[in-house]
């Protein structure tokens, strides 16, 4: 089970994930996020993983896919509140070479100038 919560602050889409992100739930995250990006004027994404209890490589794929979308329009993606096991997956796949990591949501938002 994955719950996807959206909040917008100026041109930043804040996505809070709760539950488990695998191949089954990745589809829902992809569809909802892409729909939001199409409808609303968003440049950057902040991804809050504080309440994400499980993730596998399907999560890497869907996060990378959304990163590519915002990057195409000159935006950035910042990830915050990541747990140790999920951080290891990010490190293994080299995601930190392209995404910024912040401890807290407030830091991530400040990075993008909307705190």
């Amino acid at each position, binding site marked *: 089970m994955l719950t996807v919560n959206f909040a917008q602050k100026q041109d930043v889409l804040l996505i809070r994930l709760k539950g488990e992100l695998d*191949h089954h739930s990745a589809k829902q995250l992809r569809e909802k996020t892409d729909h939001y990006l199409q409808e609303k004027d968003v440049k950057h994404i902040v991804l809050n993983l504080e309440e994400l209890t499980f993730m*596998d490589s399907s999560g890497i794929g869907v996060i990378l896919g959304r990163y590519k979308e915002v990057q195409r329009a000159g935006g950035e993606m910042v990830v915050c509140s990541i747990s140790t096991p999920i951080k290891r997956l990010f490190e*293994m796949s080299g995601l930190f070479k392209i995404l910024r990591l912040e401890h807290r949501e407030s830091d991530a938002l400040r990075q993008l100038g909307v705190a």
Partner: protein
Amino acid sequence: MTNEMKLEFSAVSENEAFARVSVGAFVAQMDPTMDELTEIKTVVSEAVTNAIIHGYEENPNGKITILAKLEEESIELTIVDTGRGIEDIEQAKEPLFTTKPELERSGMGFTIMENFMDEVEITSKVGAGTTVYLKKRLATKKSICY
């Protein structure tokens, strides 16, 4: 002593969570650390997802079998599908290699299995299916008393 279990289920994505939670519950009796349990659940999720997406290409009639074996100090998992098989196993194991980039696959499944487990053996035959054998020694297990 050795303790074994076997699960068989349909190749549908709803069962990815079922498979990792079930294996996690079985393995819990060995009192693994939280990290070890997370690693085991993650590799089960990877292997089962591969069977669903690549082995059966999302055909829900496919069946996946998981055998789990608990030894004194280690856990062995075997995940079996009778799907399309892998043509080039060495290539499949390379980090970031995927045959389904259009599905946003990251190509990290086998790399994660190799990182989280002590042994990974893949056997596969095109048109016949794939078997993934995984073994993990639990760091905390010197001896178990039942």
